[in-house]
């Protein structure tokens, strides 16, 4: 569903936490590393979309967000 404007940032925060918990996402701290991989979060979103058989876009679209909001097990989806 369309995201109410003020919720956009909130959703991004939620998605980051989800990817940290279940896909081993780590936000690059150093700017050099950040420069190297422009959007590490997009890679993790792709990994999650591929796991759940969603269209792999690397974008936080509504279906991806909806999947993240489903009640689930607390263990990671990737071997870590």
């Amino acid at each position, binding site marked *: *569903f*369309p995201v109410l404007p003020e919720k956009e940032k909130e959703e991004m925060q939620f998605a980051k936490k989800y990817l940290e918990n279940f896909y081993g996402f780590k936000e690059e701290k150093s700017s050099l590393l950040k420069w190297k991989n422009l959007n590490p979060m997009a890679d993790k979103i792709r990994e999650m979309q591929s796991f759940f058989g969603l269209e792999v876009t690397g974008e936080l679209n509504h279906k991806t967000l*909806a999947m993240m909001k489903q009640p689930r097990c607390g*263990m990671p989806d990737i*071997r870590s």
Partner: protein
Amino acid sequence: YSTFPLSPKWKKEDVTYRILNYTPDMLQADVEEAIAKAFQLWSSVTPLRFTRVYSDQADIMISFASGFHGDFYPFDGPGGTLAHAYPPGSNIGGDAHFDEDETWTKFTTYNGYNLFLVAAHELGHSLGLGHSNVLGALMYPIYMARETRDYKLPQDDIDGIQALYGRPKESPALPTKAFPPQEPTEMTPAETTTEMPPREEPTETTPSNTPVRPQDCDPHLNFDAITTLRGETLFFKGSYVWRKSPYFSDIEHDTISSFWPSLVAGFDAAYEVDKRDRVLFFKDNHYWAVRGYSIEPGFPKPIQNLGFPTSVRKIDAAVHDENTKKTYFFVGNKYWSFNENTQSMERGYPRKIAADFHGIGHTVDAALQKNGLFYFFHGANQYEVDIKSKKLIRKMKSNSWFNC
């Protein structure tokens, strides 16, 4: 299926488990039964045997906790993460933790998470399985309410657990043994919970008889309920949703469970109070409030909370008038007016539909307000009404919204 890195597993066939405490949501006997049944699922396809112990350290320690609970993975309140468990190993290895902030139940209805299903999944981790990306597998990470009577372990999970432990030796594995019942040494006395009266289980349609989605332009197409949602319009029939959005041109085909997995199919009515970004769904004599994908806590509630007499067991349709802040509820040949500001039914209702909505001489299946006009659906037809003049403007096919 998947296993953990290096595929940790129990190096023995006799594995012990201990229930450390209980959830107040369920009878203790129901908790014990759910967990024993979950172990039975795995012992029936492997050489493993599970024995319950009541004191000291067991291989698999089972507990209910909320928030921070002594490991590095705090729980997150209602929804989200339901439980977690650790791969085979010493100490915390094998242990399973369940989030007490969830509502646990032995049923597979919409008010709570079925403990047997979640425990069976978590014990898969306790035995060494990781998550599966096979939709429908028990080890799929997302909770999916399903029929639990005669629940059969999906093949993907059997393949995974037998890759670790092989097949059962003799005929179907011995039932889960328990030491002769003795007074367990410690119990966190959970307040006695009055078990929910068993609601009639929603008849789960098994895949074989799941009704097929009607064609968009089927001239006989009719709807159970219709509502707007954040500028879009959702049409409901059975478990199916037709989604019409100003943000994309074609009609999107979804299912109720893809948006709200814990809601059952077959709504009677739905309406949006868009100033509150809130949609209410009605089924039989209960209703739910959702905000986007999230179901508000504390639902479902009985429709009598809105002011209906107990003689009303279900409603046919509902629609909110953004201009007057009134919501109209249609039941049989009558309708009620509910004041969203005061949250109460208006005096002088119910009134006859035909008396106030000229041209609407029958029951209403679904109702919608769009662009200031009202649409009342009855079977395969809809009636466009100007609510101010209460005049019928035109009659159309119910699916005229689908660009047929």
